[in-house]
């Protein structure tokens, strides 16, 4: 297998008289999307060496999760990719359900698919906004936030939170959707395609944008696999890998959607992929709304250890649809199956994987999070080398990293 990108590391970067200096970009820098630090070795404005440094946001989630019950661990996932917290919640729940073999009612699956796609829209909108701002297109930023606001309002109506939702639960979701939520969502997805067209008029036909993105940060499909890229970064290079198609979870096998693929593997191809993904998300949400089946939203036997004592009493008084399984599991500590499982979900940033080991306790023995942002940042040094500072900014933007997820 040939790996040109790896060889790029050995080839000296051309240009300048070889007098180098170092520049520390971040952790406080407007274009590093949080607290990423990139140590640059520069020759003029050409990057000779690029060393990303992470860890400023490390909160030890993997260690913390070992001390929390499965249901309590859910709230940690809100703080991973805080831009698309709902997608992380869904990923976590899917993984625990697989580990403990908990069934999920169909209605809950559809609702989770809807909210996961909504959070994909949220994340892509924020990505587009900041990516465009990094390249200097300021108006797109505010246009995107206009639509993102509608989505956040919808989330607020659904579960009361705008940032850290903890709405999906192991074995279902927290509450049922209301009619007004569905109506509002329908109204949003009706107008949203025209809004995407609006962004495209500002960006796609713009010569300067094309000059800044086409041919920048090129990655071939083979290189992308080698670097471990997933999500739109991998699909932009033409590799057809979408976990929603490959290993469907929730209701993704019930809906029709296409996986947009790029071919060039540059910043522009990744941009096109994400724009197309937004269209596909709308398709998925529309189908889910149309097909949303009636029924319970939590399986009667699902354990939900996050419920406080007060909630238990209301359940015992018969005022909730949560079943007896919940209370049974609250009393008993060691009923779980032993074993390990790795479950990946397609979050907006790429493949978010949870590797769980259970040894029969009600807390995970080990939880490992495979976070796409972490691996994407690791790939940055190989992608950015030999390009200009301005291209590094475009590359960081197009890899779409979130430091909360990277540092865990």
């Amino acid at each position, binding site marked *: 297998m040939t790996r040109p990108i790896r060889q790029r590391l050995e080839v000296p970067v051309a240009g300048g008289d070889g007098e180098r200096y170092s*520049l520390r970009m971040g952790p406080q820098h407007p274009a590093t999307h949080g607290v990423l630090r990139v140590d640059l070795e520069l020759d003029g404005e050409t990057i000779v060496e690029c060393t990303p440094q992470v860890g400023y946001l490390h909160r030890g989630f993997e260690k913390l999760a070992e001390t929390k019950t499965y249901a309590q661990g859910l709230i940690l996932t809100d703080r991973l990719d805080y831009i698309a917290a709902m997608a992380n919640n869904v990923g976590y729940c899917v993984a625990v359900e697989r580990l403990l073999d908990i069934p999920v009612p169909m209605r809950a699956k559809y609702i989770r698919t809807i909210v996961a796609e909504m959070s994909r829209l949220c994340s892509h909108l924020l990505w587009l906004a900041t990516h465009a701002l990094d390249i200097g297109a300021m108006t797109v930023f505010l246009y995107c936030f206009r639509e993102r606001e509608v989505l956040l309002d919808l989330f607020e109506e659904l579960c009361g939170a705008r940032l850290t939702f903890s709405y999906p639960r192991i074995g279902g979701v927290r509450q049922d959707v209301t009619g007004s939520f569905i109506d509002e969502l329908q109204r949003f997805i009706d107008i949203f395609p025209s809004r995407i067209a609006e962004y495209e008029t500002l960006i796609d036909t713009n010569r300067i944008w094309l000059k800044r993105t086409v041919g920048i940060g090129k990655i071939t499909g083979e290189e992308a696999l080698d670097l471990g890229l997933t999500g739109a970064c991998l699909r932009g290079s033409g590799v057809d890998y979408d976990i929603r198609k490959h290993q469907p979870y929730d209701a993704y096998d019930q809906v029709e959607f296409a996986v947009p693929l790029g071919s060039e593997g540059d910043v522009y191809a990744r941009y096109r992929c994400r724009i197309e993904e937004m269209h596909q998300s709308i398709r998925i949400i529309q189908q889910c709304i149309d097909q949303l089946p009636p029924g319970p939203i939590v399986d009667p036997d699902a354990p939900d250890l996050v419920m406080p004592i007060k909630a238990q009493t209301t359940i015992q008084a018969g005022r909730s649809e949560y079943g007896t399984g919940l209370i049974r599991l609250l009393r008993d500590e060691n009923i779980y199956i032993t074993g390990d499982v790795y479950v990946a979900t397609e979050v907006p940033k790429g493949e978010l994987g949870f590797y769980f080991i259970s040894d029969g306790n009600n807390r995970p023995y080990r939880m490992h999070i495979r976070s796409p942002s972490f691996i994407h940042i690791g790939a940055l040094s190989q992608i950015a080398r030999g390009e200009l500072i301005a291209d590094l900014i475009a590359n960081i933007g197009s890899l779409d990293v979130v430091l909360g997820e990277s540092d865990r």
Partner: protein
Amino acid sequence: MNILLMLVWIIILFCVVMLHVAYATYFERKIIGRMQVRMGPMRVGWYGLLQPIADGIKSFFKEDIVPDRADKPVFLMAPIICLVAMMASLAVLPFAKGWVLADIDIGLLFIFAMSGLASYGIVLAGWSSNSKYSFLGGLRSMAQVISYEVAMGLSLVGVMLMAGSLNLTEIVEAQGDSFLGMYLMPQCIGFFVFFVSMLAETNRVPFDLPEAETELVSGYSTEYSGMRYAMFFMAEYIGMMVMASIGTVCFLGGWNGPFPVPFFPPLWFVLKVYMFMFIFIWIRATLPRYRYDQLMGLGWKLLIPVALGNIVLTAFMKAIIG
């Protein structure tokens, strides 16, 4: 007595321009706000009308931070150089017939000289801050100003050829008998080159590389604060106004309009300048930023050859017609 009168005129001009600068920021924020589906300043005064005043007072009373390892005298001087150079160009601008402080024969050259001097301020600011981001900003600015100064100078040679003068008043008057009383039509190539270099010269989007906030965190002005930062800001806006005035004078027929205005002759001039300002803002709301090497390529490979071609063409036409 004459000197005293001159001083009074200078002070009046200074005050009027400062007020315009203050409200140009308001103008920009309001317009860009409307373009970006938001309101712009709304809180200070009626529709935020007192916002520029509040900003001025705020920056005046802010702490003036000088970095520890900065080259202190140069660091303190740089914004003043910038502002003074920009202010000096105002002296030769004819706002209406006879409304000019110094009607010198080399007005256009004087303005070039002054805008060249202003870039010294930026380069020195970047150098003396002793910060790499500022330094890169200063370097970018130097390269940018040098290359676009050439293009801009060449683009105006056509106007000089047609008017036969470097005196700004005479240039305006010479335009009287061309189409619409403007050089816009006969010099459309020159105007195109001038317009693009004008954006670059004033460090505006899409050529705002010296202060690209997402790359260089503000470039040369990263380490400045308070009033000194405000000076850079004022210099930039005065620069925009001066460039817009040059465009008005050289291509749009200066103070001439469809009909003369009694009592306030500069009305057409002011309107034309604000039209330029509006276009500045419109472009800022629309375009992303060029990359450093692309900017250089555009300047040297496209604008300068086009401007040279324009000179040849103009000289040729003049030889045939005149």
